[in-house]
């Protein structure tokens, strides 16, 4: 807690002192406007697409060096009252005019600006899990920029309520939690999100689990833990109470795991466990409907087919079927 507080104070001091310092030392840096960069980066004859190695993940991508200023102005940093310029983030270019070196330092989101919410992610237990399982799942923990990517570039960081960002979060989580994504999509929350509606009124993974600090549901401090779940659901469902939150967020009736668990419980004669798990009732209803649907369509399907042929047969014989 102390570290966080001090880091926050340091950040604020930096934000005020650094510009002051630079403006006293000749006023050059403040004059380094976006237009200086846009002279080249807004002109497709001067910059083009270049292959670029993502230094943090090692991926190679072909990236356009063309900057869409409008899109930037609508991103979180463009909209901010702080009036960011290019070199606030591309700090190794402060004071550099005209041409510059090709390979720049990756933008550092954390150190000077976002150590505050950044730490909650970087020091959380979830990242620990990700790192532990990194080899097994063949996937490194996502970086700040991967989760906060814009539609065209990492530069266009969307605000946190932006539907694109919210959809991106679902995709990030699903990359490692495929089975939870599938079960999420058997509920209305996930069905609506999967149809492409990710506005703030439709719950995505982080509305329930949190964005940076993600804890196990058994942990009382978790957003879906005992203490906070009512509050979490109340964001959208006014009047949610302790009874309402017994909702099954991840119904498993279409997942083979459930049936394996069930067989095991049956073998152990653990009927109490089966009866106390609402997932079992969901499964029963599901299987019942599969049975009804199967029966109805075999019965009426054969009936319709046979009828079709019999009528044709009767017509060919030139009868009306009643023997006339």
């Amino acid at each position, binding site marked *: 807690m102390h570290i966080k507080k001090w880091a926050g104070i340091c950040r604020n001091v930096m934000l005020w002192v650094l510009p002051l310092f630079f403006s006293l030392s000749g006023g050059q840096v403040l004059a380094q406007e976006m237009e200086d960069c846009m002279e080249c980066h807004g002109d497709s004859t001067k910059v083009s697409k270049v292959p670029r190695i993502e230094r943090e993940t090692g991926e190679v991508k072909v990236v356009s060096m063309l900057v869409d200023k409008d899109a930037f102005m609508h991103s979180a940093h463009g909209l901010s009252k702080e009036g960011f310029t290019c070199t606030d983030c591309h700090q190794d270019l402060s004071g550099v005019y005209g041409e510059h070196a090709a390979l720049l330092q990756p933008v550092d989101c954390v150190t000077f600006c976002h150590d505050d919410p950044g730490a909650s992610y970087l020091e959380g237990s979830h990242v620990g899990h990700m790192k532990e399982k990194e080899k097994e799942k063949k996937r490194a923990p996502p970086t700040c920029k991967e989760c906060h990517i814009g539609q065209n570039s990492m530069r266009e960081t969307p605000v946190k309520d932006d539907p694109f960002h919210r959809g991106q979060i679902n995709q990030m989580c699903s990359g490692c939690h495929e089975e939870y994504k599938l079960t999420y*999509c058997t*509920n*209305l929350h*996930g*069905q*609506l999100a*999967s*149809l*492409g*509606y990710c*506005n703030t*009124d*439709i719950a995505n993974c982080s509305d329930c689990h949190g964005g940076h600090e993600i804890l196990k549901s058994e942990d009382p401090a978790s957003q879906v833990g005992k203490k906070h779940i009512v509050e979490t659901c109340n964001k959208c*469902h*006014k*009047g*949610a*109470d302790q*009874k*309402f*939150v*017994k*909702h*099954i967020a991840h*119904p498993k*009736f279409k997942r083979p795991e459930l049936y394996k668990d069930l067989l095991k419980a049956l073998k152990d004669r653990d009927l109490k466990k089966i009866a106390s798990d*609402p997932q079992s*009732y*969901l499964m029963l*209803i*599901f299987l019942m*409907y*599969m049975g*009804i*649907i199967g029966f*109805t*369509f075999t019965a*009426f*399907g054969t*009936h*319709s087919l*046979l*009828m*079709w042929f*019999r*009528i*044709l*047969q*009767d*017509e060919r014989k030139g009868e*009306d*079927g*009643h*023997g006339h």
Partner: protein
Amino acid sequence: MATKKEEKLYLRFTLFHRVSHLLLIISFFGLVLTGMPLAFQGQDWARWLYALLGGYPTCGYIHRICAGMTFLCAFLHFAYVSNIVLRKGEGAKIMWGVESIMLQPRDVVDILADVKWLLGFGPRPAFDRWIYWEKFEYLSLMWGTIVMAVTGFMLWFPTTFSIAFPGWAMDIALVAHRYEAILAAAFVFTIHFIHTHLLPDRIPVDEAMFTGRVSGEELQHERPTQYKRLLEAGILETYRVPPNRTLSLLSKIVAVPLLLIGLMLTSLMVSSLILDLI
């Protein structure tokens, strides 16, 4: 079946029934078109259809308005039935007997005769006013509407229902609502369509439910027992009505596209279900 000039037409459905049925068609299509994309959210056609109809939350509003129309239909129907049962003292007639749409002992005989005919061992059975599968269709629609209405309301007001039920009751409601909807839509769009419109002797459209009229020939062919009964009682001619060409044309114009939409949607649903399993 083109209506020949001197063909005699008889009234099978009154204006009340036709209007109710039209209302039911409109609301049912609205419900299916705005509901199915949710059930098949992984499919491209579902995204396309949902966006086409306005996306979230517009589709949700359409779904609820159409649900209201379904309630109106159900209300009108029950008001009509109870009016007959209570006031006219003719209750017995629509609840039991040849004119009734409730299942009768006679239907067992009909089913057996039908199976015999289908397998080629007998003549086409002589049905009365309601064929047994029409009764099944009616009764399953009634049951289905109740299930859809109850579960639909639970999804509409989940926090209100959680006063009485735990949260997972809403999940049960969702599963029941989804699969009952798939059952109902697939049934109406295939079996009901085949029975009423797509059999070789009446393709493409049976206008009975739109114009209310059936020809004497058709009546004799499909429901000979009813025809004979009415003829012998001497009241057949009281059902006689003049042809209505405008209505007949109109019903074709309305029904053919609806039939095509229904069949298309069913093929998408069925192919998605099969692809899901593979």
